[in-house]
């Protein structure tokens, strides 16, 4: 930073923003005030570009007890219990320092959850990287996975699910989105509102150091330049052991009613925690800079005020409770200090004493000669922060999705006449995005706390609730490849798939948390993608009756010369009233009927098949009928509640063939099936048109299931029967391929692969892609895709 560059520019503020700050203060801000504005008005903290869009999301719900604007959404699940959950990004820190970036991402979202009074019971991590064969990608994957595990394993919160996706668009800018879920008794709900002038502002947890200076403004709110290493000091360093103590101390403080409110310190550190709590309470604060425990001497005031040192919390405490609060924190070996007082006048005032020995007296009055370093109205930093209405423009080369009912395009690629579609299926199962994630999730403790009924690897995670018959079901889903073609459709598909993954277990989806990962909002095309994504998110949530209870927006996800595919990451938590009624995605028994519920639509664009085989020129992604999606999910929930379903899997990545292969592999049995392929076997087998389920039904329940489907207006096809050690799919129809058709038959040679071969391709795909073969006792030389054919 040279002398010519004005400070506000160095801090990442524009001239326009500086003028707005002058307006808020009716004077020139001093350097400390400027630093505080720069972090609070960062995209990360202020949502200055996205706030107008987010206002359009549906947030109301019968059971929502805390929603958007709180540290995490909270939804009542009856019986005096509620669930808190939220997803948040830590993309930029992870790109700079993968281990600490991911680790502190886990720590930050856990604090959001237990600050509400909930004990964290699960973490899900949605990770996206570039080419898995690339050395830097492998470095990032290894560091991020170790970071998520290193933190989550130590704090004792199971990592029960998530995603791992590879796409070239993430090459320069990986995505690390972490979702945390907590369970609380109704009485524990705590909000971050600084009520009661005269109350103490108490800081507890780790001491404040120089790490994470300007993380929110420098890192999270700018695209990457060429000097990424220079940003490393902006990455925070995590201490999961301190976090574990922080969890226990915080939950004890809340359970014993010792605090008025609690907020965690994340982005923008003490500045954010003080001004946001004051703003919510309609109050102000006197902050005693001298009283803040330091990790090292010689910290500048602005460093103390904006440091993002981890594992810290701010509590608002009635003076009479102070001794008890101190005892709890001390017992848990956490530094604790009174750093200020809540005031009636709505200013956040930062004070220091000339001798640096404390600016407030025992009654919270400034000591004689105390110096006022900063005075800012709390709303100016928080709820009344600057907002921009960015310019939005659709890119020129945008191809609209075809209208529903548009004719299926001729597939111009695999499987072609005479080629074995089984080879395509094996290649898909072994591909980086569809193969087993075992080598990753085995590095995460996924059963600590003894609640994990279904962990990672086989669809949505299921967590029983001790002392009840209930269970929570959780998933994250994000469809970026379709978002890249049509951001409205991609976001709608993401919500639909996440909700579907909850419904096929029999659970009722409760609400949505979302992490919107998009590009530079000052580029009209990038902002258009964000606007369309939010519109798709809102439309899908309304159609499916799901409230949005919170989330996070991550913009500027761009490396030099490339923006990420728009990535709306959707997290949904569902409730299963009786965990015993849960349905899984694995074939249960031989001789059961295999039924496809829902109608297949045209379009291969954005599918894993297209990624593998190349996309037809004029192809478009499959469309979604949200009303039909809602009916399908209501249908499957009732079918499961009535005990008609043995197992169920939704049709998503890799299409129907992959869904059937998964049910077979996971159930250790094959199936004899017959599939009408219309005029495109590729679409029928590998197309990813939404709103479809594969259902395994015992013979005696088949009529009831078809009847129920008719009542919901859901089309069903009987595909065949479970059993044997091979997955057999006969292809019928004009588009059927193979020698048999050439013999004039209407039936093609079948897709026919043994379950063992399916499993082999699926299990070895990821370690092969990442070059992890041979690790941890893993298999010998693995076959190339060609060999598999």
């Amino acid at each position: 930073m040279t002398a010519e560059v004005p400070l506000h520019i160095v801090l990442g503020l524009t001239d326009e923003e500086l003028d707005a700050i002058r307006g808020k203060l009716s004077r020139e801000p001093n350097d400390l005030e400027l630093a505080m504005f720069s972090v609070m008005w960062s995209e990360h903290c202020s949502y200055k570009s996205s706030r107008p869009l987010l206002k359009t999301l549906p947030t109301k719900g019968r059971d929502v007890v805390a929603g958007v604007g709180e540290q995490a959404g909270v939804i009542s699940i009856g019986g005096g219990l509620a669930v808190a959950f939220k997803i948040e990004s830590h993309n930029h820190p992870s790109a700079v320092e993968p281990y600490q970036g991911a680790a502190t991402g886990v720590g930050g979202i856990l604090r959001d959850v237990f600050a509400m009074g909930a004990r964290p019971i699960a973490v899900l991590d949605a990770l996206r990287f570039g080419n898995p064969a690339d050395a830097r990608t492998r470095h990032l994957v290894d560091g991020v996975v170790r970071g998520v595990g290193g933190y989550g394993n130590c704090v004792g919160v199971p990592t029960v699910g998530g995603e791992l996706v590879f796409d070239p668009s993430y090459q320069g800018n990986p995505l690390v989105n972490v979702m945390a879920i907590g369970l609380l008794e109704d009485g524990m709900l705590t909000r971050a509102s600084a009520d009661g002038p005269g109350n103490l502002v108490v800081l507890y947890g780790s001491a404040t150091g120089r790490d994470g200076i300007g993380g929110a403004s420098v890192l999270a709110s700018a695209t990457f330049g060429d000097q990424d290493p220079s940003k490393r000091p902006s990455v925070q360093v995590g201490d999961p052991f301190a976090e574990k103590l922080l969890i226990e101390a915080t939950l004890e403080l809340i359970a014993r009613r010792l605090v008025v409110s609690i907020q965690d310190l994340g982005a923008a550190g003490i500045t954010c925690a003080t001004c946001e709590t004051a703003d919510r309470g309609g109050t102000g604060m006197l902050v005693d800079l001298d009283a803040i425990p330091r990790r090292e001497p010689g910290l500048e005031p602005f460093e103390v005020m904006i440091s993002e040192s981890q594992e810290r919390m701010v509590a608002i405490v009635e003076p009479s409770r102070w001794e008890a609060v101190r005892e709890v924190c001390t017992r848990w070996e956490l530094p604790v200090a009174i750093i200020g007082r809540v005031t009636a006048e709505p200013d956040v005032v930062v004070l220091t004493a000339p001798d640096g020995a404390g600016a407030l007296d025992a009654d919270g009055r400034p000591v004689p000669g105390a110096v006022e370093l900063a005075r800012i109205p709390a709303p100016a930093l928080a709820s009344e922060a600057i907002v921009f209405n960015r310019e939005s423009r659709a890119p020129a080369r945008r191809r609209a999705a075809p209208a529903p009912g548009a004719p299926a395009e001729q597939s111009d690629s695999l499987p072609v006449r005479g080629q074995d579609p089984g080879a395509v299926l094996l290649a898909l199962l072994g591909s980086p995005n569809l193969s087993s994630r075992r080598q990753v999730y085995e590095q995460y403790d996924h059963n600590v706390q003894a609640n994990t009924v279904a962990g990672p690897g086989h669809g949505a995670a299921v967590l029983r609730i001790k002392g009840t018959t209930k269970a929570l079901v959780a998933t994250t889903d994000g469809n970026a490849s379709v978002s890249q073609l049509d951001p409205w459709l991609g976001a709608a598909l993401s919500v639909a798939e996440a909700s579907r993954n909850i419904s096929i277990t029999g659970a009722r989806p409760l609400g949505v948390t979302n992490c919107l990962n998009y590009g530079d909002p000052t580029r009209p095309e990038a902002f258009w993608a964000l606007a369309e994504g939010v519109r798709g998110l809102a439309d899908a949530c309304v159609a499916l009756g799901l409230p949005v209870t919170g989330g996070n927006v991550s913009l500027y996800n761009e490396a030099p010369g490339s923006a990420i595919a728009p990535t709306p990451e959707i997290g949904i938590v569902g409730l299963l009233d009786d965990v015993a009624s849960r349905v899984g995605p694995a074939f249960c028994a031989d001789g059961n009927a295999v039924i496809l519920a829902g109608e297949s639509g045209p379009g291969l664009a954005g599918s894993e098949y297209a990624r593998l085989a190349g996309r037809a020129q004029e192809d478009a992604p499959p469309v979604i009928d949200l009303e039909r999606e809602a009916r399908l999910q209501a249908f499957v929930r009732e079918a499961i509640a009535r005990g008609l379903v043995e197992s169920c899997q939704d049709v998503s990545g890799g299409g129907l063939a992959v869904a059937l292969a998964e049910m077979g592999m996971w159930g250790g049995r094959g199936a004899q099936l017959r599939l009408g392929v219309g005029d495109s076997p590729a679409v029928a087998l590998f197309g990813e048109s939404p709103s479809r389920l594969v259902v395994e039904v015992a013979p005696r329940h088949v009529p009831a299931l078809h009847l129920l489907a008719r009542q919901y207006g859901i089309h069903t096809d009987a595909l065949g029967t479970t059993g044997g050690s091979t997955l057999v799919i006969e292809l019928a129809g004009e588009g059927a391929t193979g020698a048999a058709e050439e013999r004039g038959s209407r039936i093609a040679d079948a897709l026919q692969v043994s379950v063992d071969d399916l499993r082999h391709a699926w299990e070895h795909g990821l370690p092969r892609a990442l070059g992890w073969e041979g690790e941890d006792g893993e298999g010998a030389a693995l076959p190339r895709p060609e060999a598999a054919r």
Partner: protein
Amino acid sequence: MTARVGIVLFPGSNRDIDAVNALRIAGAEPVVLWHESVDLEGVTGILIPGGFAYGDYLRAGVIARFSPVMRAVASFAAAGGPVLGICNGFQVLAEAKLVPGALLRNRGLRFVCREVALLPEHMDTPFTREVGERRPLRMPVAHGEGCYYADGATLDALERDGGVLWRYTNPDGSVAGPDDPGNPNGSLRGIAGVRNAAGNVAGLMPHPETAVEAILGSDDGLGIIRSLVVSAAEYAATGRIAGTKQLAGGAA
């Protein structure tokens, strides 16, 4: 009468939740013992749970062994009381020299969380007496430093004196050597858990306390937890435990 079984709580312990749940299911009264207290509150059995005691930044269990509560646990053990250390608890007991051997970083150098099968060596010990028929038991491991190591002479002595309580097994039922798929961490001779020479202190890396309910995938661990509870009750009633006299000597 229900046995009072203590759960040692270090800062950083995190499987204490699982341990309380398992002990209740096994019919015991769980009593949480804070790391700074030397008062065992009259418990007649002790379970040291998993986690990362004091953060385990230096080496697993190395700090915990110096805590006040461990002094009390050591004298409780010397008096013949039953003590079971699970995962981090096993690491703490090994660091405290209350059980033989050491736990090194996993052979794969990565944290590993997966279901394993372990076969009890002896069915008449304070920690296996309630297991029932001798068969492989399915339960999870979740650790980064679980590779059991001791020098050859110690291993031979352990095997000779019946000090090996559990071994990892392969799908075909054979003992899982360091490089076998059934061995999650490279433990020598497939050793998953051992006991001291007196027989009243044992540790294992897998998590029986997390495998006590079928809904969670396996209840094969309940027999081990129930064995501890029964031994604690016997110790309360008689001041000694059957099965701890077979071995000579009082120290590991």
